[in-house]
């Protein structure tokens, strides 16, 4: 080894083959030297440490990053996704946790830099270039569909499916069969009865917050079948909700799922009070039912307040509304709150 160091001159040209042969010989040489040398008792083992010297190989090229020009095309240097390689990246990177006051490990032989995914292949100029290249395959976006509202109006039904791309022995993925249909409830033509029935049929597939009905099917093995099934479900629910069965007419006031002002005694009382006040004759039950509340001054507000009180449960807000509506209806002064 020491022979090698002695003979080594920086800058002298070494053939790679010679060096490899040298490597195989040098172990024996070192052995011979050790045998000849007089052994000294070295208690503190200081010599062995000093003898270690770093040898640099002559056949190793300098880093590619040192030769790079400043105006090079980076996309050619790093064309695709790849783990970090220090000799190709001309950046003084450092990564690693060290105690305060020390410098973190540099980019060479730094496994941390190789672990993290990098985006060196996706620099802005490269993305721009790639976009330009695939531009010829694109068609222009329809001009009239320039905002979300227009898209929703023209394409109310949304179909969601997933495609999976991989090259394992099979290209099929069982997850790609799942089909989801989404439609806004307000886009369907439904009357009061049909809407109520539709919601009952659909159940928890309707989201009140977004007004969306989401139907998902994954029971068939192929996507086409699932799509057909989803469409069938929507169609069936829609037409079924328009059907009125005979037994639906038997629905009495007690069966109502919400408070309907027009069917409740509250309206009869209101109308009776109004007729007495305006000194008109009494009405029959049918006439009371057909009576329009908007003929009574402040009648609609009262109707709304009462319905809210029953439908949206009792709260400070609904009670206050009810209070105000009753005062207006009866012509009483407004509530005064002492400050």
């Amino acid at each position: 080894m020491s022979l090698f160091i002695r003979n080594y001159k920086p800058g002298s040209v070494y053939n790679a083959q010679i060096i490899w042969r040298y490597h195989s010989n040098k172990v024996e040489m070192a052995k011979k030297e050790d045998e000849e040398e007089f052994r000294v008792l070295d208690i503190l083992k200081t010599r062995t440490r000093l003898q270690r010297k770093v040898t640099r190989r002559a056949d190793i090229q300098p880093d590619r990053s040192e030769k790079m020009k400043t105006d090079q095309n980076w996309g050619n240097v790093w064309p695709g996704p790849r783990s970090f390689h220090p000799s190709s990246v001309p950046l003084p990177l450092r990564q690693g946790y060290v105690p305060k006051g020390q410098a973190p490990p540099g980019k060479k032989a730094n496994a941390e830099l190789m672990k993290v995914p990098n985006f060196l292949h996706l620099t802005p100029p490269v993305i721009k270039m790639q976009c330009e290249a695939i531009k010829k395959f694109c068609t222009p976006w329809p001009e009239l569909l320039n905002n979300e509202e227009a898209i929703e109006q023209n394409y109310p039904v949304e179909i969601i499916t997933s495609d999976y791309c991989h090259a394992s022995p099979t290209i099929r993925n069982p997850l790609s069969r799942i089909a989801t249909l989404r439609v806004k409830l307000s886009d369907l033509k439904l009357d009061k009865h049909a809407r109520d029935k539709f919601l009952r049929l659909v159940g928890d597939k309707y989201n009140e917050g977004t007004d969306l009905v989401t139907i998902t099917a994954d029971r068939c093995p192929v996507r086409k079948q699932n799509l057909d099934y989803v469409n069938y479900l929507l169609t069936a629910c829609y037409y079924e909700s328009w059907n009125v069965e005979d037994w639906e007419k038997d629905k009495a006031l007690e069966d109502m799922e919400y408070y309907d002002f027009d069917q409740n005694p509250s309206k009869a009382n209101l109308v009776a009070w109004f007729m007495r006040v305006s000194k008109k004759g009494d009405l029959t039950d049918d006439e009371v039912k057909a009576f329009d509340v908007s003929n009574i001054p402040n009648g609609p507000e009262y109707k709304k307040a009462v319905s809210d009180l029953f439908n949206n449960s009792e709260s400070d807000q609904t009670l206050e509304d009810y209070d105000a509506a009753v005062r207006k209806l009866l012509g009483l002064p407004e509530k005064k709150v002492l400050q």
Partner: protein
Amino acid sequence: MNNVIKFAQSAIILPQWSPIFASQFHTSSALCRVVSGKYRITKKRDKPLTYEMANPPHYIAHRKTWNSWNTCKIFTIFSMSLELLFAIPIIKTYSQLKKHVRFVTVIIKRQFNHIRVAVIIRRAVSPTKMYFLLGYSEEMLSNWIQCPVTLELQTVDSYQDVVFKYI
């Protein structure tokens, strides 16, 4: 032992003579000694550690990152190919079997169906031989695993280049 059990069974008749024959709880405190992934300090403080070894496993995501990225999903996505169940162990053992590798940390990343294996190795074999080994390993691995495998090597002069500290 049998005699003891028989004695205990017979002692049911005479409960005042029966020995305590129930298993008892250990009441000493639990020994929470975690040693995996940690290295002991040597007397001379001359044991070399890489950055990876210097940070124990509880520093993952704080001081160091995971060695495998997106590899858990390999089994769910490629559920059809059973070979992949053995993919990760194969890659790990295969790289560690190489004699020239010391302090090896094998970094495995999956991008879609593409598996990348990154390793830091010492320049101990000739470049020609290394290029052959590289192509050979890639070919063999991708044949076993049935998906493209790329080995991304970084070479260092000696193993001391990867040493972070001595303990």
